[in-house]
Structure formats: C-alpha cells, structure tokens
C-alpha cells in the first residue's frame, strides 16, 4: 500500500502525509463504534468508580455530593465486620474450590483423553452443565439439597444416617452446599482447557519415560504435570478470579441472599447490597475498587509465575 503510493508519486516525499491521514481516517472509522462504546461503558464507569469511592455519592439523593477522601475505605476496612465476613467467605470458597475443582477437572480430562471408543460422548456429557443457566442450576440444587433430597439420601447411605444437614439453612454447611453446586456447574469448563493442554504434550516424551522404566504415576508427575504447567496456571488463576465473582448462586439459593447469618455472603453480594439496595454508590464504588485490586493481584501473581518459567 505504501509502496504503491510512493510509486505513483515519487516526488512527494512528505506527501506520504495525505496518504497516512486517509489510512488514519479509515482506521478510526472501523474503530469508532467500539471505541465510543468502550469509552462510555467501560472507561467512564471505571474512572467514576475511583472518583465515587472518594465521595458520599448516592443513587437517589436530595443533597449535593461531598468529597470524603478515604473515609469510605476506612469504614469498609476498619468498621465493617460484614465486609470481612464476605471477604473471608470468598477466600474460604477459593481455597476449597480452586484446588478441588482443578484437580477434578484434571482427572476428568485425563479420563476422556484415553484412547478408547466413545470419549467424545463423555467429554460432551461432562461439559453439558456449562450450558445450564446459573439461575436454573440454583433452583435445581435447592431441591437436591433440601433435607429430604437426593444429596442427603446419598449422605445417609455413606454415613449410616449420621450426617443429614439442612444444607442451605445451616450456617455451618450453606457455603459447602454452594461449593458443591458451583463445582458441578463449571468443572467442565476447566476440563476442556486442560484436555486441550494434555493433547499438546508430545507422545514421544511418554515413550522416553516408559523406556526409562517410569510407571504411570511417575509419568504423570514428570511428564504430564510439567507439560501442562502454563495451562494449569491459567486454569488456577481464572478459577480463582471466578470464585471471587461468586454471586448468582449465593443470591438465589439461600432463603435470603448471602444467608443464613451471612454464611454465604460474598464480596459481590456486599457490592450489590451496598450500591443497589442501600443506594450508597460511594461506598459501593470503594468496594468495587477493592474487588478490582484483588483480581489484579491474582492476575499479576499468575503472570509472574508464567514468566519465571520462560526465564529458566
């Protein structure tokens, strides 16, 4: 394109300029719709989140907005036990679900990666829950987890009738109930990513390991795991971030959102409760900024770990 312009008008050295501006014009024309939408609905609210977090902005307010400095952050971090309850629920949820779900996904991926007939069918079945709308998942599991439901029927067989909690009404077990539901609903997603990774590990590495006398477990430890290191880190990161976004299930499943006794209250419930129900946009924005910082930290840790491997 540039060469043809130069060929037709060799005299205009600085004359590349009108040509460039036409490129710039079409470039911006193609970009304009997305750039406008991103500015209005991502960049603007993003900047407003920081600004509002330093004010006492309200959703519907007769009074003028006031600058309050870091007061919102102080209130959240030092005076609001419910924030810490929500954050600790998110952390507990992550600490349990991330390793459990990733491990389960890896097991499923290894199972459907066997060279046997019909593996595509099983892969599809394990993936189906991904297509079930979360609101539907929630209502199905409310019934499954009711005191007389299938889960407790199973528990009764496993524990000889010793253990049959009222999952969603018992503060000790409500978060566990949410964990079970969430793993069922989304493990297929991690499985698919890990399956793609497993298929990228060269077969020759396994053959070499078998020649060296490695058994299945040793092959898994020394060939499979190092071979899928980066996809595995990606899955761990994204599952961690998703677990901090936990909302639909804890809003729908307990009798009251985040209940009983805040046992399933999460950061997102806190944000919606504060920003929408109480109309405290300033405070809700401060919570949103804290939420963003957590997501950024998780992402940066993952980037760091992946880079380290590149350096070695």
């Amino acid at each position, binding site marked *: *394109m540039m060469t043809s312009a130069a060929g037709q008008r060799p005299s205009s050295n600085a004359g590349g300029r009108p040509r460039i501006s036409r*490129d710039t*014009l*079409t*470039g*911006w024309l*193609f970009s304009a*719709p*997305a*750039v406008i*939408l*991103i500015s209005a*609905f991502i960049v*603007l*609210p*993003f900047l407003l*989140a920081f600004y509002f977090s330093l004010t006492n902005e309200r959703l519907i307010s007769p009074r003028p907005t006031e600058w309050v400095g870091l007061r919102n952050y102080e209130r959240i971090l030092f005076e609001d036990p419910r924030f810490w309850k929500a954050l600790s629920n998110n952390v507990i949820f992550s600490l349990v679900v991330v390793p459990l779900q990733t491990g389960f996904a890896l097991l499923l991926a290894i*199972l459907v990666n*066997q060279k*046997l007939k019909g593996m595509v069918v099983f892969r599809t*079945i*394990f*993936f*189906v*829950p*991904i297509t079930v*709308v979360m*609101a*539907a*998942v929630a*209502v*199905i*599991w409310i*019934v*499954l987890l*009711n005191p*007389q*439901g*299938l889960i407790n029927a199973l528990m009764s067989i496993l524990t000889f009738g010793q253990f049959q909690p009222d999952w969603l009404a018992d503060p000790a077990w409500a978060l566990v109930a949410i964990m079970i539901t*969430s793993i*069922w*609903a*989304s493990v*297929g*997603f991690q499985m698919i990513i890990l399956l793609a990774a497993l298929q990228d590990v060269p077969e020759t590495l396994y053959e070499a390991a078998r020649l060296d006398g490695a058994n299945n477990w040793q092959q898994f430890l020394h060939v499979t795991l190092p071979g899928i290191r980066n996809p595995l880190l990606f899955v761990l990161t*994204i599952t961690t971030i*998703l*677990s901090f*976004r*936990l*909302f*639909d299930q804890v809003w*729908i499943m307990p009798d009251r959102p985040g209940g009983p006794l805040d046992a399933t209250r999460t950061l*997102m419930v806190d*944000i919606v409760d504060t920003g929408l129900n109480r109309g405290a*946009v300033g405070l809700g*924005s401060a919570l*949103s900024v804290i*939420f963003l910082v957590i*997501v950024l930290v998780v992402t940066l840790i993952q980037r760091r770990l992946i880079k380290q491997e590149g350096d070695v």
Partner: protein
Amino acid sequence: MSAENTITSAPTTRSQAVALDEANAAIRRLRRRRQVVAYGVLIALAALFLFPIAFMIVGSFKADTSVIADSGSLRAFLPAPFVGLDNYTSAIERANFWISFRNSVIISGSIVIGGLIVNSLFGYALARMPFRGRTVLMVIVLALIIVPFETLAVPLLLIMAELRWTDTLHAQILPFLAQPLYIFLFYSFFLGIPKELEEAARIDGAGPATIFLRIAAPLAKPAYAAAGILMFLYSWGQYLWPLMVTRGIDARPLPLGVAEFLGQPPRHWGDIMAYATLMVIPLLVVFIIFQRQFVKGVATTGLKG
C-alpha cells in the same frame, strides 16, 4: 493399536508357542479388565453430571408436591404422578414467560449481532490498518481485558439512573456490545490470516470496506462462530446486571423470573422445574448444533462462574 504390546517374536518350539499364546491372552484379558474399569468410572461420572438435569426435566412433568416428596429417592426420576404440560402452562402464566422470553431474545440477539460487528471491525483495524493512535488503543484494550464487569456495575448503575435508562432493554444491551476480550480474539485471528488475498484485492482497486466484507470477514468465520456462541452463552444467563437495572416485568430477562417462584411460599416446584427447563432449552439446542465451536470457544477464553 491393540496389538502393539503383545509379544510377537518368532516362537522356536511348539511349547514356547503355546506359552506365548497364553501370555498374549493374559495381556489381552488385563487390558480388557482395565477398559471395563475405565468405562465403569466414566459411566458413574456421567450419571453424576446428568442426574440434576434429568431431575429438572422429570420434575417439570410431576405434580408440585411430589417433586419435593420424591426428591430423596429414585422416584425423583419417574414422571409420576404425571401432569402433562400443566406445570408448563402455569409457569408460563405466573412468571409472564413470554414477556421475559421476548426480552431475553432481544437482549441476547442484539448483543451477539451488534457485538460481532463492532468487535470484529475494531479487531480488524487493529490487526491490519496502520493508523495513527493504534498502539495506544491496543494497549488500552489489553489492559481492559483484566477489568471485570463487577467492578463497573455500581457506577454504571448510577449512569443508567441519571440517563433514566433503568427498566429498559438497551441498558442491558449497550454495555455488553464492545468487549476487550472479543476484540482481542478477533485481532489475533485476523493477524493469523495471510495478507496476500487482501493485498491482491487492494491492487484491483477494492476499498477497505469491500475488502473487509468480501475477503477478511468470510475467512474469519471460525472466530465469528466462537465469539458469537460465547456472547450468547454469557448474555442468556446473565443475572447480576438485570437484577440491578430492572425493577418490573417490562424489561426483565428470563433468569430473573425464578425469583417470582421462590418469593412467597408455598413453592410450586413443578412450575419452577418447568420454568428452568424452558430457560435452558435454547442454550441446549445451540450447544447440540454447534458443539465443536462451542467447546473450542470456551477453551480459548474464560467464562462462566
């Protein structure tokens, strides 16, 4: 394939040959036993993944009270007492199903169609057009991929309230059209397509719009399929944002309808299961038709909690 590990070296005597046959038979038996175990585990797991869905569908044909009463036994999977489509008609009526369904179709349809156009145009410009300001835009797009929508929800709600856009469909469409993740997806895909065809067309005098529509976009069909399916999956199930930005039934999409049933006891579980089934069917159909693109799309990005 199955013969790769059997012993095949030439037998020297008759007795050796018999011993070899026996050894090979033993290996085959072992392999078969391992296969049986593998299939057993897979089938058990498949049951684990499918039973909640079966439970929902069967429940949608049962009498309200039996859904809970039978929920602890295998009778949960028998559609008895069978009530035909009663649950469906009553669920459709109670939750104003058709209004929500229409809203969901408009919202998801607009997000998919509009999103594909807007994001692919921008991704193409970033990949192919040497325009001024491109680098800055690229950096911004990459940085914004990390920002979760949840961070923007509260300030965005205030914007919608100020614009008096609450309880509208466009408040649920416009924020989800341009998305950095899909822009990046299209950008990388267009980068991977060889430039020669586009350059040939340019020499023949085609303008950028023609080149994009006639040459680049058709080559990027897989990217459109993956992105479109993901947009549909994500928008059809959205709960958080509609909860924040809608109040009444007028602009409410399907997932919010479940609240209609859960609010006041007694809960009509047959109706609820019917409503859930109706809500799930469109995605399930899309999944069955576009299975491969669906799986590939999810593998390349990261969605759903």
